[in-house]
């Protein structure tokens, strides 16, 4: 029996089509897996079902009856419960209150019924008995829990909705083996009681273990629905990549090897810290080393740690021949290390200040200057900005008057006045337009040609394939695969990213 059916559902944000055509059918008693790369439209689809986003077109049927979902409350009323990837918990409240947050039991019309609340919470906490770990109890504050325990609370909260249709958007990312096994037992039990479950995960082994059918989304379109028992991982990945997966067109256009006679620019040996463990690699002068893999597998954490803005618990970093363990970005900059973040608003832009003041801080620091003479620096700042075709009216206009792409160019320009030896790029093109991207990559390749060692993490495979001489694929905080030469294809990149570590 069909529990939920979507027919030609679409959603556009301005000019961007987030979901072109979504078709999906979830049966009672089935775990239905959604797969697709970052930005393919999975989350939009889930948000539409959960009522967080209103679709532009298409039909939604629950139990074969057409429905309109007007908002999250309406979705709940129609029997839909959701686990959000970005947890939606109240940090200062207890576990039991969070479990019932969506519908607190009430007595006499106003007061929270504490007895009912405790009873209800106890039921769901019991489900994860023995695997929840130390310090997990009904009256613990959610803010004091470990990430995996918080994720368990969010799962319990979704389960407590007792909805006939449950959506789990990456529910296992922080859980350990035993917790995942217990969670899957619970899902199987729900299945046997006729619930419909939508499950999103990037881990092929989990999908195989729990899923009945899989629907693949690519570029905002649901491509195919397959029976998981009758398919293998390669088929699924090939569908996600698209037909062009093995063709030369999607092979890397960057040269496979760099003549390494100039020696290593950056060497990392056995580096561990928060978010990554035991990572080793070497970047030659003139080389662009790509970091690939799914989002949040330790790539950013590693780059920030090398730059002195994260924690390192073991291992060593060398710039050139000499030991380099930056204790702060200030230290790293002095030693010739540069870092560009994709999160401009947080890490880069000094908002409300003139463009020139956003370019000069690195120069002041490296030359230990005391007096700021913006007009004298104009001759240094202008060429740096022009090398990327930055569009600006005057150096003394506030940086906030520029578009996102031009702001990012300004941030990059600050590293160009005094050449660093190592350039760390942390998804640098996030949210900027195509022409700005092209300008940036032209510059990055030029810098490599001038002998900089460059590490490029990008969430867009095309950028990695188009620019990196080698690609390290990250999974769960460590490097699981290195792609070199002709192996640098879209298909291999996907496969390495989705395969369990």
């Amino acid at each position, binding site marked *: 029996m069909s529990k939920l059916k979507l027919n030609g559902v679409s959603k556009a944000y301005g000019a961007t089509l987030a979901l072109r055509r979504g078709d999906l059918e979830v049966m009672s008693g089935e775990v239905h897996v959604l797969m697709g790369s970052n930005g393919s439209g999975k989350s939009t689809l889930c948000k539409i079902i959960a009522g967080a986003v209103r679709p532009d077109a298409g039909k939604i049927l629950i139990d074969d009856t057409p429905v309109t979902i007007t908002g999250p409350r309406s979705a709940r009323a129609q029997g839909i419960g959701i686990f959000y990837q970005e947890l939606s918990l109240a940090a200062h409240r207890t576990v039991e209150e969070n479990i019932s947050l969506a519908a607190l039991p009430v007595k006499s019309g106003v007061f929270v019924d504490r007895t009912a609340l405790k009873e209800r919470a106890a039921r769901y906490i019991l489900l994860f008995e023995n695997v929840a770990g130390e310090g997990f109890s009904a009256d613990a504050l959610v803010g004091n829990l470990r990430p995996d325990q918080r994720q368990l609370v969010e799962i319990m909260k979704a389960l407590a909705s007792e909805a006939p249709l449950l959506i789990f958007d990456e529910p296992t990312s922080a859980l350990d083996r035993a917790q995942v096994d217990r969670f899957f037992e619970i899902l199987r039990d729900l299945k046997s009681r006729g619930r419909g479950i939508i499950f999103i995960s990037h881990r092929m082994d989990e999908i195989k273990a729990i899923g009945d059918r899989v629907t693949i989304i690519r570029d905002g379109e649901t491509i195919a629905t397959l029976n998981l028992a009758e398919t293998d991982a390669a088929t699924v990945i090939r569908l996600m990549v698209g037909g062009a997966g093995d063709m030369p067109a999607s092979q890397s256009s960057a040269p496979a090897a760099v003549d390494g006679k100039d020696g290593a620019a950056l060497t990392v040996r056995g580096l561990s810290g928060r978010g990554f463990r035991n990572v080793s690699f070497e970047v030659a002068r003139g080389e662009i080393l790509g970091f690939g893999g799914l989002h949040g597998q330790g790539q950013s954490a590693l780059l920030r740690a090398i*730059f002195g*803005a994260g924690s390192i618990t073991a291992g060593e970093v060398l710039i050139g021949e000499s030991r380099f363990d930056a204790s*702060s*970005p*200030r230290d790293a*900059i*002095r030693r010739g290390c540069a*870092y560009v*973040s994709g999160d401009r608003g*947080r*890490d*880069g*832009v*000094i*908002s*409300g*200040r003139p463009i020139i*003041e956003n370019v*000069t*801080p*690195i120069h*002041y*620091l490296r030359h230990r*200057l*005391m*007096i*700021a*003479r913006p007009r004298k620096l104009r001759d240094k700042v202008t060429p740096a900005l022009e090398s990327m075709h930055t569009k600006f009216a005057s150096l003394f206009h506030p940086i906030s008057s520029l578009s996102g792409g031009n702001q990012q160019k300004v941030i990059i320009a*600050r590293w160009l006045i005094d050449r660093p030896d190592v350039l760390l790029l942390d998804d640098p093109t996030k949210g900027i337009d195509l022409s700005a991207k092209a300008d940036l990559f032209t510059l990055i390749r030029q810098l490599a040609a001038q002998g900089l060692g460059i590490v490029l993490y990008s969430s867009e495979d095309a950028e990695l394939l188009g620019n990196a001489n080698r690609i390290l694929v990250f999974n769960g905080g460590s490097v699981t695969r290195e792609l070199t030469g002709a192996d640098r294809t879209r298909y291999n990149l996907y496969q390495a990213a989705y395969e369990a570590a």
Partner: protein
Amino acid sequence: MSQVVSRFLSFIRQPIIAALVLIVLLLYLGQMLSPGFASGGQILRLLIVASLLGIIAAGQNVVILGGREGIDLSVGGVVSLSAIIAGNVMNGADSGILPAIAACLAAGGFFGLLNGLGVTLLRIPPLVMTLGMLGVLQGLLVVIRMGIPSGQAAPALSRFVTQPLAFGIPGIIWLWIAIGVLMALMLNRTVFGHRIYAIGSNEHAAYMAGVPVRLIRIALFMLSGMFAAIAGLCLLGYSGTSFANVGEQYMLPSIIAVVFGGTSLAGGKGGYTGTMAGAVLLVILQSILTTINIDESGRQMVFGATLLLLMMFYGRGRAMRA
């Protein structure tokens, strides 16, 4: 026509222009209420008082510019402490002036350092840290003085504050002008100044660009303490002897002057020139309130309400969100 009007409106909405216009209007109002209010001698007296407030506000200004809810509520305590230290060190003798200056700056810098360390290393919100420090200072004042007025200003100090020094203008006003020029140079022409704005606008981005965020924030609180100490010294010269909690009344006005001058309480935006205009404006307002027989408590109420009104006018309520 409407373009001219809108241009005029945007011109007048610039905080410093608005402050200057209000200054002229208030002087006119004062003259109406009490003839002689806007006379040369009276204006000089107002400027002397304004320079005391303005020097304190310079410290307040840099702390606020540094962002992260930066504010220094302990300035009043430092002013009082500095006045007492200066009075006891110089004790009516001109030869004691230099040691007094050194002692006051050291004390102001020390308490500023404590504020800075508390805010950066212990991560105590500035509001709480400096309020606690104010409490400590008030207690300390009671212990030192035991309620008995002590200490005399040196004659040269009193002359510096109250008598004309050059072109008929007292030394303290010249000092204030010099501080104004130095502040403008520091904020606009030194790397330190640019870094103050950088940490005030986006602390994390500044950190990632190699700005020593903690050191700078500590330096700002130290500057604030030292400016308050200089003001305390001058205040002693103004009144002759130090008396109970002379500095207390300056805390609220020093914040209002900064906000009046167009500095955002969120940090990273503003400058000292506007603050100077704000200080003059407040002193005139205070004087008018005195002229129409409104006592100290009434003046405090008016000041408090003025600050709240300003916050609404500039739409900076978000600045104070914790």
